[in-house]
């Protein structure tokens, strides 16, 4: 059955080149390849449910170092891979419809396939080095997809910004796994975790590794202070935002912490850092989201905020809560993004100030947005436990301050999502729009499937704890469940009322916008430094190039001179010498008369000369 496990990431990776090669001849321009590949991957994962498989291979050994690559299927990796494959399937379906009018669709689907394959590799990897390779590959795919409409204003800059800012964190990952390799001599994750359990590493080393890994997670999951790239990445096509920048890639940071959770559990200092960064991001991003004017940017800040909530849960020692939030967030946020894509497609704008009353025109989209928004705010049908409640329960286990903070974040979530929803969908019917409406079937299917998955997220919560290796969920006191729901209702009410009354005005005064600008300025700074550095390197390289060019020119001139010397002087000299020899030979041959008597006469004369000379000089 190991072939099935390999097929999971390999199928989408194969679909990418195929789409590039043959996509232009297919009716959906390669989209069907993506949908088929992800469907097969998902099916393979379903067949593999509950199994535990390890495929390991040694990449190479050098000295005491052993670099392995391989895939591992256990509760956590299966769970994450299923979430990724599921969201990928529906978003892939949606993007087939969404991209209908775009040029260059095979390229889009190839890049999307590259991303999906790399992401599945990332979650299934059994070795840090393979995980790192996949981690970098999703970065590249994200870069390519953000810059997909490269001729559009800002797309290239946003792509570069996203790439560079996540790179800052990737340095941490690189150093982290190199440190593991240095200490343990292998990159195998199970070896790392078992040596953590057997306490074979010093606490200081554990903290160092954990903090480096957390740096990677900060960059990938858009935590403070590396947040600003995520809203800018919203210039990407909406399916990309839904898949990469909310459901999967940005959640990879959280996933990394979950994967290495035993490591973090033994490093309290690192867990504290995770908690503080997570809670600061959750609060900050939620505040900024209340003041955004662009529908997708609201969702992007909300993504950052929710990832902060997951970090907060991990920091408090609640990986289960984070994992549940990871799954539910993937479904409701991608549903919200996909409905935002519908709005964008229909109206041609995402500006909250110019949108209103779309509930009359796009009823299905409104329904999907509503389901997603309710799930986001923490409501679940039939009063099932929501993932927010699990986080609050986790927070309660280590004091109520963090729980109050969570309540605040839940309140703010309600505010911004209600504001955005009411501003876009409620109000008077707009003037006759010219948009395509809701006639695109693949888009509707993808969107509604994810919205329904979001609404049923509670069932996931009921089913998942048996799969994940993190124990059972903590019991939430009834009073706190009530608090959570009340906070959500209050948030929705405040946000909704504010949007009803003032349409798209920032819900909480001017503060969020100012905060966003300050953060953008603060984070642009390191990026500018990197740019300046790169420019300096480029100039240095230019000089080096000039020097090399000069050297090459000089050598060439020297060679040309040598060549001329060779041809004109040495060559001519050689010719003249040869001619001299030839004429000498011509002259000498006249001595060879062929007359025998001359020869003999010469012989005798010569003998006479020698004898007479010898006698005369007394030899």
């Amino acid at each position, binding site marked *: 059955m190991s072939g099935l496990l390999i097929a999971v990431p390999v199928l989408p990776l194969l679909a990418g080149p195929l789409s590039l090669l043959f996509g232009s001849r297919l009716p959906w321009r390669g989209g069907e390849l993506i949908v088929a590949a992800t469907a097969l991957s998902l099916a393979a994962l379903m067949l593999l449910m509950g199994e535990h498989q390890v495929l390991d291979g040694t990449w190479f050994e050098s000295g005491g170092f052993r670099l392995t690559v391989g895939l591992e299927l256990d509760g956590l990796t299966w769970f994450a891979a299923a979430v990724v494959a599921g969201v990928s399937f529906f978003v892939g379906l949606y993007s087939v419809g969404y991209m209908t009018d775009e040029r260059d669709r095979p390229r889009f689907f190839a890049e999307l396939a590259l991303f999906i394959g790399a992401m599945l590799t990332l979650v299934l990897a059994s070795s840090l080095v393979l995980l790192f390779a996949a981690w970098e590959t999703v970065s590249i795919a994200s870069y390519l997809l953000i810059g997909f409409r490269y001729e559009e204003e800002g797309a290239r800059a946003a792509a570069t910004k996203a790439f560079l800012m996540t790179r800052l964190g990737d340095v941490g990952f690189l150093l982290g796994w190199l440190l593991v390799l240095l200490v343990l001599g292998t990159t195998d994750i199970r070896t790392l975790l078992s040596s953590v359990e057997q306490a074979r590493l010093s606490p200081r080393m554990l903290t160092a590794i954990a903090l480096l890994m957390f740096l990677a997670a900060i960059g990938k999951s858009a935590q403070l202070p590396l947040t600003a790239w995520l809203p800018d990445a919203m210039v990407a096509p909406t399916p990309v935002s839904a898949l990469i920048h909310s459901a999967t890639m940005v959640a990879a940071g959280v996933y990394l912490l979950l994967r290495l959770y035993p490591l973090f559990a033994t490093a309290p200092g690192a867990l504290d850092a995770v908690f503080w960064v997570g809670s600061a991001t959750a609060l900050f991003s939620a505040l900024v989201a209340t003041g955004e004017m662009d529908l997708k940017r609201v969702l992007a800040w909300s993504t950052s905020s929710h990832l902060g909530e997951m970090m907060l849960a991990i920091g408090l020692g609640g990986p289960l809560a984070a994992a549940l939030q990871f799954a539910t967030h993937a479904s409701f946020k991608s549903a919200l993004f996909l409905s935002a894509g519908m709005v964008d497609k229909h109206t041609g704008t995402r500006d909250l100030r110019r949108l209103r009353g779309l509930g009359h025109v796009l009823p299905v989209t409104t329904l999907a947005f509503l389901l997603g928004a309710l799930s986001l705010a923490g409501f679940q049908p039939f009063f099932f436990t929501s993932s927010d409640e699990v986080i609050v329960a986790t927070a309660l286990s280590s004091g109520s301050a963090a729980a109050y903070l969570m309540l605040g974040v839940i309140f703010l979530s309600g505010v911004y999502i209600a504001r955005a929803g009411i501003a876009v969908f409620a109000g008077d019917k707009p003037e006759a729009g010219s948009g395509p409406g809701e006639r695109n079937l693949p888009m509707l299917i993808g969107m509604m499937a994810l919205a329904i998955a979001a609404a049923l997220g509670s069932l996931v919560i009921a089913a998942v704890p048996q799969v994940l290796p993190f124990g059972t969920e903590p019991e939430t006191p009834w009073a706190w469940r009530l608090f959570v729901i009340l906070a959500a209702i209050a948030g929705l009410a405040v946000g909704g009322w504010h949007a009803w009354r003032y349409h798209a005005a920032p819900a909480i005064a001017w503060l969020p916008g100012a905060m966003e600008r300050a953060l953008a300025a603060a984070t642009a700074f390191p990026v500018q430094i990197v740019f300046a550095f790169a420019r300096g390197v480029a100039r240095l390289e230019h000089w080096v190039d000039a020097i090399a060019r000069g050297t090459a020119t000089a050598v060439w001139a020297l060679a040309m001179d040598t060549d001329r010397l060779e041809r004109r002087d040495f060559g001519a000299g050689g010719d003249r010498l040869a001619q001299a020899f030839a004429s000498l030979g011509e002259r*000498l*041959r*006249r*001595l*060879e*008369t*062929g*007359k*025998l*008597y001359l020869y*003999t*006469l010469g012989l*005798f004369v010569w003998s006479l000369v020698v004898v007479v000379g010898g006698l005369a000089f007394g030899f």
Partner: protein
Amino acid sequence: MIVPLTAYLVVGAILFAIAVYTVVAQRSAVMVLMGIELLLNAVGLNIVAFWRFVRPDDYSAQIFTIFIITIGAVEMAIGLGIMMMIYRQRRTVQVDKFTELRG
């Protein structure tokens, strides 16, 4: 009457001069060969004369002379053989005609 050494040497020198003249001046290969034979004999006469008047107790000069006679016979055989071959091919033994190897 004892013939003095000088007389032998004079006869040898005359023979040698005649031989040189023959080798240089004759056009016929047979005559050239005869000149060469005469050269050898002139030298042989000299050696015998010097033996007889200077070191009569040392026989190595006689042995040397016998060698020279032998060499002369062999040389003549080879030389005449070559001449016969050339004559058969060219119908002439005039050495001036043989100029193929001229430079």
